[in-house]
Each structure stands twice: as structure tokens, then as C-alpha cells.
């Protein structure tokens, strides 16, 4: 069914690929655009910007989100900033440098051509957002301000206090609102996509459930765009919103779309530590804090119970500064997270359960004054105090890594189209740009690049050959998909067991965190692969989903998502086991340098792993497809932040 994976990268020199691709892509003329219906699932930075832009271009767009308003998509929670190669600081930044930082940061597991394009359009994003009224921070002269951000040696990050994601999303939401009012975009809030409909091999529609009325609906379109974010909630506890889920992408996978690199999950180093079993989510503290905060633990285990202010400087281990002198506290996320886990595993962690490290602002306050620190991070210090009850101006913050972002996602080619023609995947939901580790302030950049500046050029290239091919919702594939979904909902409601959803989801999350989290090994992964089907069986026999399907039923919504996580978890572990090397966030204990850093195996694994669903409804081992990665511009080197 699928031959070798062709990423359809344009020929020619790296720097000219995108321009030449745009010059030769097929177009849809303005008077034909209104004849095309496009479904966009998700209203975050990627989906919202795509829907607004396609609507503005004159296509008829339908945008779906599970939230009660498109303004609530989880992009809103991003704090730190957005990268762009503007070089406003005159500090040596360039498109090439943003590109090469992203390739290296991703530990050579992303595509050069995609990443170069991302760096190229990054500058347009800032122009666009400023034109929309996004209140980025400015200097006294009125020009835009920048800061340096996790893992970068230049200041290329634009920010709006600690609420950059919120402001970018509101800019995009407002553009979307304008199109909704103009009638070019029809918005379907509180509507969840439950299946993809494939007709004659092309993605031509979706099946949805209205979360308020419970009504199941069918929608046909000329193309389907998934912008449904990441799957971090498979771990139960993550920094994702409660509703974030894998359902749309996983069900597309079950309809033939390939899932790429599912084991690449980013563990963010600066989150508020876990405090008890009842906890429903973990809260991120923006990594911008690492610009001024110093990370340390006591040198001696015996000091861990002491108040931090009683531990003198020479008895503290500023382990990031010690191990990575040139990057220090700004070392990339995967490296910082693993280093925190290591010191805690040595028994030098602080706080309840010994799962925490200090992030200390005392030196920065001494150097810059409390007022400056308050201006830079005031809202983050407030969040911290609300959750923990501690004042971080007086005692160091305690932080610990938590699941934050997923680099894996549906496989897409250079046009952001999956192997299923017509199915496009953008933002965190695809796998394309971040390789095995995403750099800070690059998620917002990718979401908006895809939605404002890439998909609007690549989607017409597909549509141009699809005039008049939109099926009716009476097509047999729609009817079949609808009846399958109804049966699945009935099955969930029929289980009528005694266990709560949360208890099973928590069990799955704990298992993955242990076996497929910050570090993995073959034995642990095999154990997880043996255990997950048991947890899944337990779910399908003993969970209790109350109420009925024809109603507002939050337990039913979550049950469907947990059911998908229970299958998807197996795919993650399968991928982690097959990738018998370490790279970026994927740290296999069997493969490390003598200093304990990730040891890549470029000969065998400089390739994308894209998995094809097998099993005709049953779960069978997925089939592996490879897309070799070629590094023609940035030479393969071992990452070094020392």
C-alpha cells in the first residue's frame, strides 16, 4: 500500500527550495476558491491561523474545537516566547543560524528542508502578529525587545510578558472571529472529531460528536486539516490542559495515516514538582526563569532536609554550571531534565519525595534588584506562590521535569500532507520540525508558520486537482464511519464496571513515566508492552462510564480519549524499543557516552520511523516505514553544550 516514503522535498539549494516550490505550486483562482470546503480540526495557533488565513483567501472553512471557544485552545498557556530570525539585536543571528540551532537542538532527527523553511518564515510571523496588535514587549525607544531563551546564544525571542502564547492566540482568534463574522469560516466549538472519513483513498470528511447535545454528525470536505496538538496527556500528568488528547490523530492513524516518531516526548525541566496523588496536572514555570535563576542541589544528601538558606554556597552543587560550563543554566531542555533526574536519583533531590531541585534567584536579585526580577517574572512568582504557598523572592523555587510537548506526530511530507492524500497535519500534531528535541520558543513559531505561511501555499497544490470531487455525506464510507462511532460509544457506556477513568489513566501514566519517560531501556519497554494490554483489558471490562450518549457527558468524552491513549501507549513503547539509540529526548540507557550523554547511531537511525496501523480493528504490531534523513548542510556532530 505504501512504497518508500517520499517527503517530496524540492530540488535545488537549501536556501532556494521554498521560494522555488511556491513559484511552481499549483494555484486555485479566486472565483474557484469558494467552491472548496476545508475542514480544520483544532483552533490553536496552527488551526486558528490556518482557518483565518484560508477563510481570508476565499475558501469555505469549517473549524472544529472541543473547547467552548476557539480562544481557549492550549496554545494559550505557552509562556516564554516565540523565536524569529530578525537579528534586531545585531548579535549575529540569521535564518541560517536559527535553522542550524534547530537542527542541532533536535539532535539531527528532523528534515533540513522543513527546518530551513521554518526559519525563513519566522520573520514574517512577527510582522503579521504586530500588524494584528499583539502587544510584544518593547524597549523605551519603541522598538521590539528580545531575550535569549533556552539553548540559544543569540537574543531572538519575542515575548509578551509571561503570556506570549495567550497574546499570539488572541491575535489569531481575533483574525478567526473576523472571518466568522464575514461568513467564510463556520465555527463548531464543543465539537470533537471522532473519526476521519477516507473515500477512494483521499481524506474527505470527519465524524464528530457535539459535546453539549451528544449528536453525532458527518461533514464532507475537499481536504481535512488536523491541528489537534500533542499527546502529552498519555502520561496522565503533564503540563497540557485536561482536555488535550490523541484521539483525532490516533483515529486518523487507524484510517491509514502514518504516525512518526511517537516516542519523542519532551520533558520540560522547569515545572512545579508533583505534590500528591490527587493532583490533576503539572504546572510549568517558563524556562525564561533559567535566564536569571541558578539551578542547584545540596552537595551532600544529608543537607537535603535543611532549609536552603542555611546551606552555604560552597556546599551547593550548581550542577548545570559545573557540567556544561558554556551553556550552564541555559542548557537545552532534554539535557537539563535528565541532569535533574540524575541528581535526584543520587538522593540529592529536595522537597517532598526528594523529587525537586532548587531554582534560585538570590544572586539575580542581588545583582539586578527585586524590582527588575518582579518586572521580568512577577506573574510566574505569583503562580508559584499560589500553588506551593512559598515566596520565591525569599526562598528558592523548587522545580522538577514534567511532560510538556510531543515532537512525534502524524507523518507529513514537505507540503504538510500525510500519506493519505488530502489529510494535512499542522502544528504540534505533525512530527516535522523539532526532531528528537524542541528548542524553547519554537512551538509557537511552528504553529503560526504552518497556519499563516505554509499551508496556504501547499494546500491549493492539492486542491487544484480535486475540483468537484467532494463526496456527499450519504456516501457509504460516511455511513460506515458513523455506525462504527456509535457502536464504540455504546460499548463504552455498556461496560458499567466499578473503576473510575482517572484510576486507570493514572495507572497508564505512571507506567509510561517509569518505562518510557526521561530514560528508557529495552527491558523496561518490553515490560511496558506486556503490561499495557492488561491495563487496556481492565479498562474495557471494569471502568464505569455513567450517563448516556445523547447528553452533555464529560465522563464519556474522557472515556473515549483514555481508550485511545491505552492503544497509543503501545505504539509509543514500540517506537522507543525499535529506536535502539539515544537521541535528544529519547534517552536509551544502553546508549550513552562515558559522560552519560545521549549517544546517537547515525548509521542506523538517522531516519524517521513512521508506523502504519495493522490489524483491521484489532491491535496488531504496526508496520514500520522509514524516511532516511540527509544532512547536506549541517554536519552530523555530537551535540555539546559543555
Amino acid at each position: 500500500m505504501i512504497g518508500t516514503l517520499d517527503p517530496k522535498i524540492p530540488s535545488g539549494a537549501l536556501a532556494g527550495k521554498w521560494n522555488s516550490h511556491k513559484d511552481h505550486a499549483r494555484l486555485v483562482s479566486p472565483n474557484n476558491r469558494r467552491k472548496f470546503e476545508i475542514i480544520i480540526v483544532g483552533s490553536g495557533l496552527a488551526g486558528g491561523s490556518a482557518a483565518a488565513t484560508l477563510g481570508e483567501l476565499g475558501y469555505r472553512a469549517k473549524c472544529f474545537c472541543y473547547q467552548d471557544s476557539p480562544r481557549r485552545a492550549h496554545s494559550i498557556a505557552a509562556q516564554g516566547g516565540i523565536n524569529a530570525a530578525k537579528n534586531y539585536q545585531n548579535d549575529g543571528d540569521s535564518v541560517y543560524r536559527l535553522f542550524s540551532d534547530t537542527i542541532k537542538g533536535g539532535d539531527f532527527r528532523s528534515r533540513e528542508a522543513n527546518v530551513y523553511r521554518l526559519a525563513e518564515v519566522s520573520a514574517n510571523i512577527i510582522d503579521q502578529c504586530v500588524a494584528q496588535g499583539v502587544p510584544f514587549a518593547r524597549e523605551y525607544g519603541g522598538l521590539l525587545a528580545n531575550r535569549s531563551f533556552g539553548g540559544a546564544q543569540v537574543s531572538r525571542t519575542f515575548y509578551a510578558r509571561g503570556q506570549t502564547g495567550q497574546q499570539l492566540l488572541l491575535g489569531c482568534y481575533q483574525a478567526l472571529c473576523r472571518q466568522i463574522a464575514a461568513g467564510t469560516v463556520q465555527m463548531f466549538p464543543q465539537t470533537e472529531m471522532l473519526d476521519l472519513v477516507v473515500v477512494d483513498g483521499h481524506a474527505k470528511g470527519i465524524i464528530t460528536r457535539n459535546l453539549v447535545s451528544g449528536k453525532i454528525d458527518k461533514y464532507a470536505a475537499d481536504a481535512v486539516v488536523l491541528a489537534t496538538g500533542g499527546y502529552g496527556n498519555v502520561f496522565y500528568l503533564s503540563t497540557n490542559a485536561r482536555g488535550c488528547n490523541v484521539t483525532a490523530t490516533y483515529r486518523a492513524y487507524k484510517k491509514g495515516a502514518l504516525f512518526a516518531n511517537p516516542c519523542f516526548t519532551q520533558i520540560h525541566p522547569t515545572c512545579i514538582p508533583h505534590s500528591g496523588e490527587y493532583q490533576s496536572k503539572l504546572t510549568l514555570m517558563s524556562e525564561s526563569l533559567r535566564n536569571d535563576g541558578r539551578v542547584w542541589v545540596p552537595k551532600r544528601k544529608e543537607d537535603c532536609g535543611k532549609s536552603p538558606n542555611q546551606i552555604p554556597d560552597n556546599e551547593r552543587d550548581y550542577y548545570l554550571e559545573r557540567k556544561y560550563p558554556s551553556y550552564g543554566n541555559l542548557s537545552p531542555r532534554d539535557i537539563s531534565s535528565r541532569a535533574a533526574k540524575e541528581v535526584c536519583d543520587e538522593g540529592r533531590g529536595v522537597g517532598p519525595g526528594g523529587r525537586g531541585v532548587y531554582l534560585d534567584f538570590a544572586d539575580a536579585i542581588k545583582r539586578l534588584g527585586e524590582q527588575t526580577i518582579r518586572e521580568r517574572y512577577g506573574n510566574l512568582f505569583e503562580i508559584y506562590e499560589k500553588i506551593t504557598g512559598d515566596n520565591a523572592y525569599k526562598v528558592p523555587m523548587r522545580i522538577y521535569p514534567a511532560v510538556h510537548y510531543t515532537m512525534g506526530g502524524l507523518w507529513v511530507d514537505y507540503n504538510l500532507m500525510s500519506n493519505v492524500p488530502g489529510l494535512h497535519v499542522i502544528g504540534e500534531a505533525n512530527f516535522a520540525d523539532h526532531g528528537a528535541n524542541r528548542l524553547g520558543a519554537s512551538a509557537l513559531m511552528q504553529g503560526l508558520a504552518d497556519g499563516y505561511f505554509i499551508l496556504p501555499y501547499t494546500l491549493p497544490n492539492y486542491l487544484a486537482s480535486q475540483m468537484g470531487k467532494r463526496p456527499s455525506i450519504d456516501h457509504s464510507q460516511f455511513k460506515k464511519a458513523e455506525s462504527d462511532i456509535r457502536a464504540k460509544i455504546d460499548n463504552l457506556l455498556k461496560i458499567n464496571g466499578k473503576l473510575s477513568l482517572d484510576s486507570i489513566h493514572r495507572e497508564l501514566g505512571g507506567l509510561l513515566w517509569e518505562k518510557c519517560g526521561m530514560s528508557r531501556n529495552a527491558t523496561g519497554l518490553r515490560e511496558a508492552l506486556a503490561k499495557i494490554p492488561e491495563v487496556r483489558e481492565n479498562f474495557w471490562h471494569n471502568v464505569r462510564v455513567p450517563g448516556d450518549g445523547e447528553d452533555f457527558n464529560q465522563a464519556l468524552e474522557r472515556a473515549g480519549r483514555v481508550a485511545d491513549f491505552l492503544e497509543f501507549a503501545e505504539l509509543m513503547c514500540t517506537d522507543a524499543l525499535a529506536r535502539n539509540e539515544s537521541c535528544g529526548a529519547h534517552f536509551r540507557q544502553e546508549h550513552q557516552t562515558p559522560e552519560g550523554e545521549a549517544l546517537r547511531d547515525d548509521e542506523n537511525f538517522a531516519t524517521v520511523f513512521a508506523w502504519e496501523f495493522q490489524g483491521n480493528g484489532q491491535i496488531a504490531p504496526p508496520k514500520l516505514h522509514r524516511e532516511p534523513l540527509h544532512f547536506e548542510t549541517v554536519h552530523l556532530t555530537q551535540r555539546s553544550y559543555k
Partner: protein
Amino acid sequence: MNFRLKIWRQPNAKSSGKLVDYEAKDISPNTSFLEMLDIVNEDLLARGEEPIAFDSDCREGICGTCALTINGEAHGPDHPGAVCEVYMRKFRDGETIIVEPFRVRSFPVVKDLVVDRSALDRIVQAGGFISARAGSAPEANSIPIPKPDVDLAMEAAACIGCGACAAACPNASAMLFTAAKVSHLALLPQGNPERTSRVLKMVHAMDAEGFGNCTNTYECEAVCPAEISASFIAKLNREYARASLRASVRE
């Protein structure tokens, strides 16, 4: 800690609702208010009863999804902050806590504690945007904006769209919400071309949704999780007066 809860239960918009008594036992003071409700729901589920419906998503105070009135206060006792940021250490052990939805005529109840706030989206759709087509934007630094102006715009732009302002207002007015968006965009040079039409359209949309007027009680400001200042309402009034005058002169 232990609590007695009186929680609003209402099956749907058409039927009437009532307060029902529940108990929350052995709750750690470090539990968030919504996690406490999760625990109550787990108990209900174990007993075969229907869980309490309530909205939440990010659970870190930024998405604006959660919306509860606790003991008569929108978002509960720990201002500024959304109800997802309220921790049980803020309550007394043994306290009776009354939990209701946001009570606003323009926010009909969907179920139990969940309300429909799409009226706020429609106010933004009426004009709460700057028309900037992707592809046409000028170079970002071509218009310098004084830092104090952009800082003030950011204060207004911080609104999370939760609707607590309307829930707290004795007139169920959405003036603070509308004022925040009008002010954010009017304070920036990019917002200038649509400044007049924007405020007129947004205020008309707000009125059409059935929200009340402002009578300067400042309850909105007191409960706003994003600390939006009520002085933006004065700004809205000035913008509206300016726009009305301009519109009438043009006619």
C-alpha cells in the same frame, strides 16, 4: 480537611435546578478547589451517581474555561486568580461551601455548573480585531510604539475571557470584557484605522446580547483573574463618545 458542599445541580437549560448537599472528606490543604471537586466526583461515581458537571481545561489560570461562583464570589476567595488557582488551604476546616455557576442572563446554564458564554465570542466577532491579512504586514519595527503605550495595551489584552466580570456585576454587565478589548486595540497605532467602527459595533453587540450597563460598582475589577482595571471602562466610554460624535459628524 473536611467540607460540606452545597452544589448547584441542573440537568439542562430547560429544567430548573437546585442546591444539593455533598461532603468532601480527608482533603489535603494542597488540593486545588477543582481537584477537590474531582475527588467528590470519584466518590459519586463509585456510588453509581452522576458526577457534577463543571468546566475546566488548562488548570493554570490562563484559558478562562473554569467558571464557578463560590460562596457568592465569582472564582472564589483567592483573588486575583481563576477558580482553578484556588487551593483548599484558603478555606476553614469544616466550612460549608456553596458552589454555583456564573449567574448571568446572557450565559444560559448548559448543565450543573457549566454555562454557555458564546455571547462573549459574538462581541469579539462584531469588531474586536484588527484587519491584517497574512502576507500584507509591514516590517514589525517600522512603527515604533512607546513602551508605556504598549505596556498599557498589554494590561488590557491580558483578559482571559472567563466572564467573571459579568457574573460579579449586579447588572450582569460585560463592560469590563468589552472595554479590555476596545482599549487594547485603541491604544496601538495598528488599531487606529478601525478605531471608530470597532467600538460602536462591539458596544451594540454587547447590548444585543442582553448584558446590563455599568453603574460603577467595581465588582468586576475585584474578581477579575487578569486584574483588568475598571479604568478601562472609562476609556471605553470615551472611545464610544468619540466614535459616536465622529459617526454623527460623518452623517
